[in-house]
C-alpha cells in the first residue's frame, strides 16, 4: 500500500446525551486504501463516532476534514454528497418494497420525475450479482420482508455499494451474517479498498478486526486512546488499551451464596436467544456481561414473559410457563427496566400510584382500592429506599433520574419478588444514586431474592455481582466467579480472547 494523505480526519468530537458523555474529544484519522477498525468496550463511543461521520448523529463539537477540506456533515444526505455511505446492524430497508426498489431507494434513476424501472434494474444487477454467492436464491422483485435477516443485511450492504462510496462505514454490519457470507463481504471490502476507498469497520468479533483491518483506532469512555497498525498486535495488548489502567473497584459482596437453586433455565430459545442455560441461587447476584446486544436484555424479557420463547424454566424446582408479565409476576418474578420513561414508570401519574400499581391486587378488597393502605405501602417504600420526593401525589416526572429509578425498584419490591431481573438499572443515573441503588440490590439479595442484572457498564458488574455470565450471540459463553470478575477479564471474555478465542460459538456451527 502506498502512503497517502488522510482521507478522513475527525478531531475534538464531543457528544452528550442528557447526562451521559458519549464522546469527549474523540479523534480518528483514516486514509484511502485502508480498512480501519474502530474498537472499544461497551459505551466507548465507537458507534457514535461512526454516526457523526455518516451524518446521523449531530455532534456538540467536532472538526471534520475530508481530503484535507473542513466540512460540516449535518445529515445522511450531506454525508452522501461527500461520498460517505454507512451500513448498520439496524437496517434501513422498507419491508414492503422489492429488493431492487430497496437497492435504489433514495437514488432512483428516472427522467422528469418518473421512475425508470429498466435503469434501476441495470444499476441493481451488478450489485446483486456481486452479492449472489452470499445471498443465495433471491429475486430482484421479491419484497425484502420475505428475506432472511442475513439476506436483508446483505441487501443493506448492497444499498451502500450502489452509491459507490469513497468512505464506507460498516458498523456491526456482519453481526447477523453467516461465516460464508462474511467471507464474501470481506472480499468485496478488500476490492473496494484496493480501488482506493476507505472502509471504517466496527465489529464485536475481534478475529474479524484482525483478519480484515489494516489499522485500528481504539476508544475508551468517549476518547481515542490509540491508533495502531493491526498486523502483529497481540490481543492482550488490545484489551489493555481498551480497558486502560483500571483502579481497583471496591467489590461489595461477602461469601459466595450457598442457598438452594432458585432459578433454573435450560435451553431457552427465542428471538436473539440461541439456547441459554443458567442456574442462580437464592441470595445470589448474577450479572450478564459481554458486549452489548448479545441477548442480555432479550434473556431478561424472556424470563419476564414479555417476549415469546421456548425452553425450560423452573423456580424453586417448580416448572414455570412464561406466558406474560402478569403470570411471571404471579410467580414472584420482577423486572426493573432501564428505560424508565417508556416501561418503568407512568411519568405524569402520582408517585404513590406508580409505586402501588403492580401490587394493587394485594391491597384491594373486592376490587376496591383502599387509599389508606395504598398510601401506607407507598410511604414504606419511600422510606426504605430513601426516595427524595416532595409529596406522594407529585408526578414521577418531577423526580431526578436516580429517584425515579428508585420508584421503579419500589413498585417491584412491593410485590415481594423472589427473582429480580434488572435491565441496566442505573442507566443515566448519577454516581451517588448509583451507590444507593447498589446497596438496594445487595439488600434484596441478602433478604433471599435472586438477582439477575444486565449492565452496559462492566464496572457495575464488577461492583455488585457474585458471578457474571458473559453472553455472546444469544448464548452464555463464559462464566466468571468471585474474584475472577475484573474489568479486564470481562472484556477478554466478551471479545473471546484466551481459551474461548478459537472456539466458534455453537450457534454459528449450527447455522
Amino acid at each position, binding site marked *: 500500500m502506498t502512503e497517502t494523505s488522510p482521507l478522513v480526519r475527525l478531531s475534538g468530537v464531543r457528544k452528550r446525551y442528557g447526562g451521559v458523555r458519549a464522546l469527549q474529544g474523540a479523534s480518528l484519522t483514516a486514509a484511502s486504501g485502508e480498512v480501519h477498525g474502530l474498537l472499544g468496550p461497551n459505551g466507548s463511543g465507537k458507534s457514535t463516532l461512526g454516526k457523526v461521520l455518516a451524518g446521523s448523529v449531530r455532534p456538540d463539537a467536532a472538526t471534520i476534514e475530508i481530503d484535507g477540506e473542513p466540512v460540516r456533515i449535518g445529515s445522511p444526505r450531506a454525508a452522501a454528497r461527500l461520498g460517505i455511505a454507512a451500513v448498520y446492524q439496524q437496517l434501513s430497508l*422498507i419491508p414492503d418494497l422489492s429488493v431492487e426498489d430497496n437497492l435504489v431507494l433514495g437514488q432512483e434513476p*428516472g427522467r422528469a420525475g418518473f421512475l425508470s424501472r429498466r435503469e434501476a434494474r441495470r444499476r441493481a444487477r451488478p450489485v446483486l450479482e456481486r452479492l449472489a454467492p452470499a445471498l443465495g436464491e433471491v429475486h430482484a422483485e*421479491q419484497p425484502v420482508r420475505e428475506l432472511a435477516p442475513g439476506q436483508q443485511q446483505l441487501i443493506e450492504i448492497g444499498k451502500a455499494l450502489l452509491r459507490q462510496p469513497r468512505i464506507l462505514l460498516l458498523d456491526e454490519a456482519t453481526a447477523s451474517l453467516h461465516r460464508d457470507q462474511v467471507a464474501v463481504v470481506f472480499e468485496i471490502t478488500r476490492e473496494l479498498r484496493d480501488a482506493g476507498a476507505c472502509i471504517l469497520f466496527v465489529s464485536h468479533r475481534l478475529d474479524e478486526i484482525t483478519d480484515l483491518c489494516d489499522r485500528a483506532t481504539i476508544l475508551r469512555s468517549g476518547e481515542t486512546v490509540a491508533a495502531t497498525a493491526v498486523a502483529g498486535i497481540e490481543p492482550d495488548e488490545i484489551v489493555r488499551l481498551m480497558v486502560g489502567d483500571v483502579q481497583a473497584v471496591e467489590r461489595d459482596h461477602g461469601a459466595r451464596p450457598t442457598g438452594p437453586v432458585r432459578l433454573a433455565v435450560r435451553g431457552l430459545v427465542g428471538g436473539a436467544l440461541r439456547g441459554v442455560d443458567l442456574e442462580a441461587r437464592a441470595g445470589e447476584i448474577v450479572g450478564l456481561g459481554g458486549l452489548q446486544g448479545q441477548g442480555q436484555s432479550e434473556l431478561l424479557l424472556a424470563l419476564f414473559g414479555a417476549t415469546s420463547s421456548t425452553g425450560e424454566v423452573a423456580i424453586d424446582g417448580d416448572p414455570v410457563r412464561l406466558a406474560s408479565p402478569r403470570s411471571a409476576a404471579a410467580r414472584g418474578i420482577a423486572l426493573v427496566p432501564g428505560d424508565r420513561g417508556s416501561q418503568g414508570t407512568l411519568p405524569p401519574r402520582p408517585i404513590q400510584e406508580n409505586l402501588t400499581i403492580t401490587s394493587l391486587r394485594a391491597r384491594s378488597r373486592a376490587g376496591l382500592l383502599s387509599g389508606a393502605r395504598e398510601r401506607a405501602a407507598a410511604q414504606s417504600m419511600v422510606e426504605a429506599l430513601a426516595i427524595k420526593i416532595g409529596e406522594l401525589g407529585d408526578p414521577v416526572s418531577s423526580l431526578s433520574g436516580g429517584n425515579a429509578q428508585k420508584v421503579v425498584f419500589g413498585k417491584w419490591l412491593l410485590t415481594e419478588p423472589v427473582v429480580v431481573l434488572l435491565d441496566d438499572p442505573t442507566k443515566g443515573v448519577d454516581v451517588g444514586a448509583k451507590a444507593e441503588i447498589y446497596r438496594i440490590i445487595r439488600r434484596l439479595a441478602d433478604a433471599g431474592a435472586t438477582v439477575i442484572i444486565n449492565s452496559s457498564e462492566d464496572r457495575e458488574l464488577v461492583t455488585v455481582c457474585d458471578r457474571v455470565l458473559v453472553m455472546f450471540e444469544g448464548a452464555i459463553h463464559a462464566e466468571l466467579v468471585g474474584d475472577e470478575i475484573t474489568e479486564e477479564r470481562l472484556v477478554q471474555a466478551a471479545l473471546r480472547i484466551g481459551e474461548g478465542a478459537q472456539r466458534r460459538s455453537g450457534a454459528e456451527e449450527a447455522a
Partner: protein
Amino acid sequence: MTETKAAPTRERAPITARIARVRVASWATAALLVVAVVLAIALQPSLLSPYGIASTFATFLPLVLVAVAQAVVVIGGGLDLSAGAIVALSSVVAVQVMQGSDDRALLGFAVAIGTGLACGLVNGLIVSRLRLQPLIATFATASVFSGLALLVLPTPGGTVPAVLTGTFRQAVAGVPVSVLLVVAVALGWLVVRQLRIMRHIRATGGGPAAAFASLVPVAGAQLASYAFSGIVCGLAGLAVLGNAGSGDPFIGGDLALNSVAAVVIGGVALRGGIGSPIGAIAGAITLALASTILFAIGLPTSWRALASGLVVILALALSALGAPRRQR
C-alpha cells in the same frame, strides 16, 4: 464491481410466486366488491339501465376521488381528516368564481384545483415541518376549511355552468362520462404511481427512519402526499358540482371518514406503506353500493346509520382477516 457468473440472480420471479404474493387483502377487497355489486343489482335491477349506471357512477365519483387522495396520504404514513372539508371549500369557491357562466368554467376548474392544492400544502406543512400528529392537525384544518367554506357560501345555492353539469350527464360512444371518469381516475393513478415522489411517499410510510437513512426526502414526501390529496380533493369538489348542479358548503360531511373506511376496505394499511389507490377505488365503490343496498331493502331511515356502520365494521373485519400479520 467485477462480474461474477456464478449463481446469477434471477430477476423475474416465476409467475406462480408472483400470484402467491398478491395480498390476501386484495382478494378480500375484490370479493367484497363482487358481493356488493351482485347484491345491489339483484335488489335493484334498474341500476343496470343506462341511466342507472350513469347516475350511480356520478354519485360514486366524489368518494372514489377522495378515497384515492386518502390512500396516497395513508400509504405515506399520514391521515387526512380534512379531505371532505377541502372538497366542500374548493367546490364553493369554484361556484362563486364561475357564477353559472360557461365562459368561466375553465377558470372554475383551475380555482377548484388551486384551492385544493393550497389546503393540501397547509396540511402538509403542518405535518411535515411542525411535526404535528396528522390526526389532530387535519382534524383542526378540517374545521378551518369548513369555516372558510361557510364564509364563501353561507347557504347551499349558486349555479354551476351548464357545460359542467351537461358533460357529466353525457355519454361517449354509449359509455356514460361518469363511468369514463372513474376509469380515468384508475388509469391516471397507473401513470402517477410511476413518479419518483410516489416511491418516496411509499417508503416514508413503510419506515420513516429507514427512509430518512436511505436519503429519501421524508419531509418532502409527506408534503407531497398532502398536496396530492388536496389536488384530488379539488377535483372531487368539481365532481360534486357536476353532479349536484349547485354549491353546498356542507357537502364534505362524512366524506373524510368514509374515505378512510374505503381505504381500509381497499387493503391499505393504516400504519402506512402498504396498499394501492386502486384498492381504495374498489373500497369506495363497495362502500357506496352498501348504502344503495340498504336503501333498496327498504330499511327505515332511522336504522340506516346504524346498519351502514355495521356494514363498515364487517367489511373492515373481513379485510383485516386477509391483511398480513405484523411480525413480533
